């Protein structure tokens, strides 16, 4: 039989898929007539911190959104802990790109975090003191509790990102999906966010984040999923995040010096 010589040899077994908090099979997504993601398989390891990396326009965010059912794929299946996505929504928390919403919306910080409790509170259920306390605790975890009553438009970019993270924490999920959580945030926020993500991992949760800063991949994450329209590599940072895979994903867009620098940092 024919074998793709370049894949990383990482072909997940059916049991690995069933245990994976997020498994994608044959996913193709296209805007118009150019696939942004083509025939991608992905199996996220339980309890891992996985970075989805790839050059601009490689389909990173598109893949994440398709996993969540926000964009409709042309083909492919998503399974969460071996079950269809629709049954497992309560187990997933999502942190969208900061720029995806209108921050002029008339609402307070605490109200945004309370949105994370919607599945619990429901359509008409009463918001109790316990809910508010929980929302405040989540804000505390990202260092934003002092801002609870602020209008969201008054926040800086980094603060907005932390509020989104607090909303995801309020969902008390097992799988956290983040879309470029470090894009355009200050250094303090970046530190605060990564601390929260690492504590989630310590609690046994799985974290998957679209990430674009190659220099920090090794520090922040233990697994990578490298994509450029197709899957390039998948696995632990040490084996999947190499000069060769980077070269393949980024092609000429990544200067050789940069590659050397990264591999030196990893070594």
């Amino acid at each position, binding site marked *: 039989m024919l074998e793709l010589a370049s894949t990383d040899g990482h072909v997940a077994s059916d049991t690995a898929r069933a245990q994976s908090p997020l498994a994608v099979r044959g996913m193709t997504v296209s805007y118009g007539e150019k696939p942004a993601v083509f025939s991608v398989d992905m199996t996220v390891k339980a309890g891992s911190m996985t970075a989805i990396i790839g050059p601009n326009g490689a389909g990173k965010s598109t893949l994440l*959104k398709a996993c*969540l*059912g*926000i964009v409709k794929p042309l083909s492919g299946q998503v399974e969460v802990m071996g079950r269809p996505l*629709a049954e497992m*929504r309560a187990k*997933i928390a*999502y942190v*969208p790109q*900061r*720029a*995806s*919403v*209108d*921050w*002029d*919306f*008339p*609402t*307070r910080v605490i*109200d*945004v975090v309370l*949105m994370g409790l*919607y*599945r619990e*509170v429901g*359509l*008409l259920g009463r918001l109790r003191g316990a809910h508010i306390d929980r929302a405040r605790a989540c804000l505390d975890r990202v260092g934003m509790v002092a801002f609870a009553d602020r*209008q*969201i*438009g*008054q926040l*800086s*970019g*980094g603060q*907005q990102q932390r509020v989104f993270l607090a*909303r995801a924490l309020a969902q008390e999920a097992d799988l956290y999906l983040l879309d470029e959580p470090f894009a*355009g*945030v*200050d250094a303090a926020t970046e530190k605060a966010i990564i601390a929260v993500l690492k504590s989630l991992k310590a609690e046994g949760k799985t974290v998957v984040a679209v990430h674009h800063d190659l220099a920090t991949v090794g520090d922040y994450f233990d697994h990578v999923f490298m994509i450029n329209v197709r899957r390039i590599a998948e696995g632990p940072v040490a084996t999947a995040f190499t000069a060769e895979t980077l070269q393949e994903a980024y092609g000429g867009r990544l200067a050789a010096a940069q590659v050397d620098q990264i591999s030196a940092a990893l070594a």
Partner: protein
Amino acid sequence: MGAEFVPLSLPPILIGTFAAIACALPGNFLLLRRQALIGDAISHVVLPGIVAAFLVTGTISTGPMLIGAMVAAVLTVILIELVRRLGNIEPGAAMGVVFTAMFAGGVLLLELSDTSSVHLDVQHALYGNLESLIWLDATGWGSLLDAQALRYLPVELPRIAITLVAVALFMAVLWRPLKISTFDEGFARTLGLPTGLIGLSLVTVAALAAVAAFDAVGSIIVIAMFICPPAAARMMTNRLERQVAWSVLFATLSAVLGYVLAGYGPLWLGGQDAVSAAGMIATVSGVILGIAALYGPCRSRTGAPEGA
């Protein structure tokens, strides 16, 4: 307040107020969803809907006409969405193409068919006839407790009251999904909320309010009330709950003040005849918006991302 207030002024004031609130409530969400002009589109297509219903049934009974208007409104919303998606056209332009063409179709149908025997004309569609909705059986405040007299209330009053209750109920029950999906549609979908359905039901409820209000007060009020009170309210507060409350207040103020000014304003200025109440209500709502835009505590943008 003379004895003529209850028979002559109370019903139109109540009808105008209820209509204004029924439109302003969904208007808050339309405003935040950048769909403010949906109200404009809907109110333009009510006329073709009514004309079509008349041509189909051949009678001028209210029920079929309201249904016709409702169907036209929902059809328009779907058509706009269809044109937008199929043609890959920006929403404003798609809206402009659809509602103007439907309005033109309505006018043409009206002119070509024999509707001279019935009271159905473009002007009525535009300004309504709030002033004529009087309660002749009333003799004073006591009539409000008189079952016999109450039976002859102008039929528009209970109709718009029921519509208002329905709209308010919809808003109350779907408050959270509406708020979440308006603020962050992607997140709403990850919660499993049917965002497309929520959007469509909001527009349908807006259409319901528009049709019921149109029947009583004409389309100018409808467009103005969808936009002006919520827009003015947005300048007053940064919280959605309070914004809705302000918009209800502004809608009420516009309706009452507008009606009074239209009826009595010309007299104070030495004129003899009242001017269009619908037009005056829209004007007052514009003045309120102007004042809020000049002095409202939350009039300027805060949401511009501040870089880092």
